[in-house]
């Protein structure tokens, strides 16, 4: 299958048809996408800002870790609703530069999260309450916040950069 055939198939799926034809589908998915965004970013504020060093007199890094699954939940919500948007109009999204850049930043954000999980998390959780994270851990946390701010900006402007209207 080439690109055009894949897009044609995606647009013909039940999800693609619902997104285009049911009046409620697009606003519902958008609302859920915004709620997922707030859930993801809110959880990252709680975790990443603490790793960077804020609030260290009040909370240990290990005590903020339960918010990582919350971030993943928000991400999952946005992945599902995002697939819905894409299946609705694949041909409109794919050539859009803001969409492509958004996907690239999400990919880098995912790799960054893996680095956090595999290389940083154990050491960070082992720190005494009130202790500061290492430079590398702080950089991973800061990168995470910046990447997702970039994702939000690109997501908000992409309707205006690719003729989606």
């Amino acid at each position, binding site marked *: 299958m080439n690109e055009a055939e894949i897009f044609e198939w995606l647009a013909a799926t039940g999800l693609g048809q619902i997104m285009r034809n049911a009046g409620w589908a697009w606003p519902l998915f958008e609302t859920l996408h*915004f709620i997922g*965004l*707030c859930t993801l970013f*809110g959880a990252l504020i709680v975790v990443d800002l603490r790793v960077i060093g804020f609030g260290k007199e*009040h909370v240990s890094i290990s005590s903020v870790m*339960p918010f990582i699954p919350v971030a993943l939940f928000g991400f999952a919500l946005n992945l599902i609703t995002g697939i819905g948007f894409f299946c609705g109009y694949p041909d409109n999204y794919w050539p859009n530069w803001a969409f492509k850049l958004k996907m690239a930043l999400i990919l880098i954000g995912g790799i960054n999260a893996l680095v956090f999980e595999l290389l940083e998390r154990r050491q960070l959780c082992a720190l005494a309450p009130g202790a500061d994270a290492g430079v590398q851990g702080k950089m991973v946390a800061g990168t995470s916040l910046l990447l997702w701010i970039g994702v939000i900006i690109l997501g*908000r402007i992409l309707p205006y950069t690719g003729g989606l209207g």
Partner: protein
Amino acid sequence: MHFLLWLKDSAIGTWVRESDYGYAIVLSSHAIGMAIIVGAVLMFDIRILGFARQMSLKWFDQIYTLAWVGFGVNAVSGVLLFCGNPVKFTFSTAFQIKLALILAGGISVWVLGKQIENPENLAPDGAVRRAAKLTAMLSLLFWLGAITAGRLIAYTTSPI
């Protein structure tokens, strides 16, 4: 009505509507501010409702400083967006509901802050009394409702 039309034709209103980057910058700022405010409030609410009890509520004192910055960003970007299309927003039911829900959401967070200041409402294991949990549930509903109403503005008004 006269004032709304004057606002629409003012330099600010025209800039938001017609400049190349004005609308994109203002809209993106509004989305980031939303992520900060609603994100912080949602995490606060689920913590009150019993999630991640080991984490001290004091962390939210600092997070709320940031949330106020987010609120400032959204007050400014919101006023700018309003100036771009004052007539459309004023007469949009979804917009009116959104503002009411933000007001209710703000009050609920303020009440919740007062409730957890009272040590009687806090158990040693980090749990919180039921009255505060009820406020947290209301806060969740108000803020998620504000997002929903905000999204619906675009579907219940004509473009531009």
